């Protein structure tokens, strides 16, 4: 009964979404409050039914009900409880159900907290949400139904892909989906604005926090995915420019641009049309990501199952939504009222520059991702566009962007003073040069670009610190006053600094990891010793152990440094009987931000084992950076104040600090 009720709830959600996508629009056209309010109650009811449907699927997985095909194919009665739950979205059908559940959640949130929105705007937004939702409900029910049954249920399931049996699955997909789907809100707002033909201040007030929230989740989701790949796939890489990774990076880049342009729009009522375009593009890229991953066009860990009908269906959704929204934009954008004006050198100008770099970077990633696919379709030739392409295009675009980052927050709204900003960044610049000299003096080997890159990262970090110092007036006013002013600074200012500093932190990690990474790859017999980066690893022996649904072979390494025993590392290889496949569980030893990484290969006939040992200096900074960025986002989000960008008067009577 649970299975069928869940199925029926999903069907009801589809029916409700269909009503929600038509009735409120009629109401808005007729200016009838009751008809427009239908959007609100149906959005909440939709959330209720999708939630019930999702809960039903979770219950079925937990109860190991193999009469449901989805559970049979992806679960096993011996699987630990946590993986029974996460396994719900560790497969195509379940992950799509999670996708629509999150979509319904966002729709429900708009319905619930949208009281301060103009009624017709809310009706339009929810109707657009319902279009997206209807399309995906249909997609799920027709091509990827998780509630299909098996008349004669088998006794045991086929188990979840072992690579996915990890705590990462509990975090990475829901985070990523919260990000992807969160951008649907700004998309719906953009389409609503285009349909209504006007954008008002309430629009901007709403879009920025939603975008920020989606961006926070997407940032964490990508970082988590990268860390998961790093420790689970067993070769210590954290980013492969894999098309699926690019599929998540593109909405992130566009979303970051959107975040900044929405800021201009909220505070200064400018860049309206551009913000709308970015909203559309960001969500379109999210949909493109879904298409690339879910259609089976790409084969990777993420493509659980490929089925041509699914691909065609998603492609159809993609064309309708992207094509439709861009046509609407082309038709209506000119009718939107243009916003405020600003000088080229101003906070707005800096944010436009940021937008230009981010969108260009996004475009290069798009080309690098889609070009091989297009080439394969047209000529049948298979090429792979890998790291060299992206390093050559993406890298040079990010360098000027990073140089510009510290300047942005120091410029005043409307018209800024570039020289003044440069003066205030002198300390940061000197710090960066010092670091450059130190790095050059102290390190040996590696790329000549490493030291300048680190100096750039330090410049970004110090630059964001000097922004805070300037605002608090540290060194100019007495210390106590400065502290009080620092506490009184808007949380969004702290958020900006943290997020920008996070960028620099991540860059340091990336540069150090790629430049001074040392490794040992070879076969070891018990009592052999490997030396990596000053550490000595002695293989004590190999053991077998029985896990809940796997057997594992554990290698025990005694790690010592300069003769002192540091720790014991136990990487393992797990083999899963049901799927007949195995995973490597790398062992990590963290000291500071650096890590020692050991993963196992195969056992040779002589009883030796292939071992990969890496020492990765400051590797953790790669993920601390995004965490800092997300933290900055949370701080900024928690700032409940309205945003007013006080413009700098045309004739300044006195030298003023830039205002928040």
């Amino acid at each position: 009964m649970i299975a069928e009720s869940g199925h029926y709830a999903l069907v009801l959600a589809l029916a409700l979404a269909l009503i929600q996508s038509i009735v409120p629009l009629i109401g808005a056209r007729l200016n009838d409050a009751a008809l427009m309010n239908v959007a609100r109650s149906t959005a909440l009811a939709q959330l209720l039914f999708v939630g019930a449907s999702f809960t039903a699927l979770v219950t079925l997985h937990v109860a190991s009900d193999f009469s449901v095909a989805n559970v049979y194919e992806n679960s096993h009665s011996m699987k630990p409880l946590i993986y029974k739950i996460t396994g719900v979205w560790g497969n195509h059908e379940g992950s799509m159900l999670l996708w629509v559940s999150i979509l319904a959640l966002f729709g429900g949130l708009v319905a619930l907290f949208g009281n301060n929105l103009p009624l017709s705007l809310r009706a339009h937004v929810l109707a657009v949400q319902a279009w997206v939702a209807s399309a995906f409900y249909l997609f799920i029910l027709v091509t990827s139904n998780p509630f299909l049954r098996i008349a004669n249920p088998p006794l045991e399931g086929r188990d979840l892909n072992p690579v996915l049996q990890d705590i990462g699955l509990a975090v990475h997909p829901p985070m990523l989906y919260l990000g992807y789907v969160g951008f649907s809100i700004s998309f719906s707002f953009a389409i609503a604005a285009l349909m209504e033909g006007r954008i008002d201040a309430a629009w901007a007030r709403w879009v920025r926090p939603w975008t920020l929230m989606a961006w926070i989740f997407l940032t964490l989701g990508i970082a988590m995915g990268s860390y998961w790949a790093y420790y689970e796939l067993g070769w210590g890489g954290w980013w492969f420019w894999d098309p699926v990774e690019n599929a998540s990076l593109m909405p992130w880049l566009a979303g970051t641009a959107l975040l900044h342009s929405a800021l201009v729009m909220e505070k200064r009522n400018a860049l309206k049309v551009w913000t709308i375009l970015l909203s559309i593009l960001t969500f379109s890229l999210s949909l493109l990501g879904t298409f690339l991953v879910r259609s089976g066009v790409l084969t990777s860990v993420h493509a659980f199952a490929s089925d041509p009908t699914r691909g065609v269906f998603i492609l159809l959704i993609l064309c309708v939504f992207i094509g439709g929204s861009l046509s609407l934009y082309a038709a209506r954008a000119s009718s939107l009222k243009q916003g405020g004006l600003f000088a080229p050198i101003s906070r707005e100008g800096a944010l436009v520059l940021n937008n230009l770099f981010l969108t260009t970077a996004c475009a290069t990633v798009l080309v690098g991702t889609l070009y091989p696919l297009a080439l394969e379709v047209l000529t049948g030739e298979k090429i792979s566009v890998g790291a060299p392409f992206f390093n050559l295009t993406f890298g040079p675009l990010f360098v000027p962007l990073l140089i510009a980052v510290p300047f942005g927050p120091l410029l005043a709204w409307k018209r800024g003073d570039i020289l003044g900003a440069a003066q205030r960044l002198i300390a940061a610049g000197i710090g960066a040069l010092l670091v450059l000299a130190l790095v050059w003096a102290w390190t040996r080997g590696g790329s000549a670009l490493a030291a300048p890159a680190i100096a750039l990262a330090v410049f970004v970090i110090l630059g964001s610190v000097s922004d805070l110092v300037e605002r608090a007036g540290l060194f100019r006013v007495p210390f106590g006053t400065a502290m009080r002013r620092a506490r009184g600074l808007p949380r969004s200012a702290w958020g900006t600094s943290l997020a920008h500093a996070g960028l620099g932190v991540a860059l340091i990690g990336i540069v150090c990891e790629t430049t001074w990474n040392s490794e040992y790859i070879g076969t070891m017999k018990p009592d052999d010793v490997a030396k990596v980066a000053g550490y000595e690893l002695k293989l004590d022996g190999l053991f077998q152990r029985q896990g809940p649904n796997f057997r594992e072979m554990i290698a025990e390494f005694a790690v010592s440094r300069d003769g002192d025993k540091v720790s014991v590392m136990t990487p393992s290889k797990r083999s899963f009987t049901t799927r007949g496949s195995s995973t490597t569980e790398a062992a990590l030893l963290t000291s500071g931000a650096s890590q020692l990484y050991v993963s196992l290969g195969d056992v040779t006939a002589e009883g030796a084992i292939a071992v990969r040992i890496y020492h990765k200096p400051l590797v953790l900074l790669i993920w601390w950076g995004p965490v800092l960025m997300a933290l900055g986002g949370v701080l900024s989000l928690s700032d409940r104040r309205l945003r007013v960008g006080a413009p700098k008067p045309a004739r300044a009577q006195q030298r003023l600090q830039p205002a928040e």
Partner: protein
Amino acid sequence: MTLWFVFALMTVAAIFAVLWPLGRGNRAANQSLEGQGSETVVYKDQLAEVERDLAAGLIAGPEAEAARIEIGRRLLAAAGVEQASAGQSNVKWRRVAAVLALVGLPLVAIGVYGRLGSPQLHDFPLAERSRAPNMAQSLENLVTQVEQHLEKNPTDGRGWNVLAPVLERLGRYDDAVRAYRNVLTYGGENAERHSDLGEALSAAAGGVVTAEAKSEFERAVALNADEPKANYFLGLAAEQDGRKDDAAKIWRALLAKAPADAPWRPLVQTSLTRVGGGTVAPALSDETLAAAKDMNEGDRSAMVRGMVERLATRLKQNGDDVEGWLRLVRAYLVMGERDKAKAALTDARQAVANDADRLRQLNEGLKTMGLDG
């Protein structure tokens, strides 16, 4: 029936969600329209914000003034637009929406669910499954259950002992090897278990007695020299190594020691024929005789006699064993006791008289011995 009741309740809830705002009447709806946020509200809030920032010293006077002017300008523009709009109600379209909810929604729901759903199937969670005892359980399901039990209790040697032969019969040789290893680890070792493991290893290698398998058989023989399976496979190993004579020797010894009714006799016999030791082995194999060489004459003949006596006694109890009779007859001939040989022959004929096949086999065997009639 309960299922349809639940469906009906859910459908009613969904319809209610659509009808509720429609039925709230104009007054309530228009009230809510007025309560909505609008542009002017946002701008008024922004003005208040500027004042607060100014008071907190976050922005300076001239900037605050500039901001106030800008916001004021927008506020005036927005207020002008908002005057124009006021809520209306449209009874005709509300009716259409209500009909859509009352008729369209259930139609869509039943239509889609009817095509995709399987309402006749019940849930079948794990807990219920293990409680269903009279369900026809196939061998594989039983194996799965035992395997699950053993995944949880990997040290249950008896369990592995039950599972291992079944796995081998199912053709899952690698799993059988693992199971037999576990039997040895957790159930203690004996000759039979080593032989079983060796056999599974050979089966996994496609019938080849690998070095690994051979060492298991050798271990088994070390524990019990008479372990028949181990001896058979050691012979096979010799044969596969091309040492046919060794193979024949091992097998002959095996047959000599074998009980007459051992089910594997024909197999060994056939193998022996294959390596060219086809003629039936003498009662006392070369090995036994070789072992006896070191003894003095008396001991040796005592040993031989003892063995022949045992054979004779056994054949009296169970006369079906043609090979045994032939061996006995030959033994008497070798010892030069022709009379006894003839007597044994008579006994043999009597014992197998009822079986034409065996009788023919006996006569065939006798022809090679040159013992007339």
